[in-house]
């Protein structure tokens, strides 16, 4: 699974993207976030304020119960501030 991080999520996690082998029990976005938090203090800090974390799967905005699977492009980022 390809993970992308933007803005302060990128800074706190310390990388812009990575490819991870996600364990089989991770089937939804919420489970993915829980599992990522367990990877280290940088992830835990970045994902602590869960309300401020938006998720896109394959470039579409999704909610916490949206399914994720191997091969997906999953992006985590704060609320957008363009325009």
């Amino acid at each position, binding site marked *: 699974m390809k993970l*992308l991080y*933007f*803005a*302060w999520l990128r800074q706190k996690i310390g990388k812009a993207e990575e490819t991870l082998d996600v364990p089989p029990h991770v089937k939804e976005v919420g489970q993915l976030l829980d599992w990522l938090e367990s990877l280290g203090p940088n992830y835990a800090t970045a994902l602590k304020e869960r309300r401020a974390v938006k998720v*896109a799967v394959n*470039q579409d*905005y999704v909610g916490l119960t949206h399914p994720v699977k191997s091969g997906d492009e999953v*992006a985590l*980022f*704060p*609320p*957008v*501030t*363009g*325009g």
Partner: protein
Amino acid sequence: MIRVQREDFDVGTELAKLAAGNHQVGGIASFVGLVRDIAPKDSGAESAMTLEHYPGMTEKRLAEIEAEAHRRWPLAATVIIHRYGRLEPGDRIVLVGTASSHREAALESCAFLIDWLKTEAPFWKLEEGPEGAKWVEARSSDDARKEAWKK
């Protein structure tokens, strides 16, 4: 027409294209967003910013927002140009332009596009303030303006 780019754009040229060769266009509405200087007036400094975005998703979202405007209003042509990278106060950030036979359609769809773009397009602003760089926080008033279009 969607463009996501580092380079500046020429507002007059882009708006003229919207009516080029189409004499049914009666009005062109546009909005240009500029970088505001957030440094205190007496600081002597100017505050630049850097716009980060999500390549691929940005273009996809903007194309969807543009298509939604065409579904809602009778539009002859539209343009959305959004820049990324480092920008200084006074620099252009974004252009939205809409052309229609009817001025109501042009004006309303232009406001719709900039309101939706603000809450949908994956851009993030990092402002270089007097106390260092700071990510701009999303405004709840922007969400409210977007929600108003759902009615």
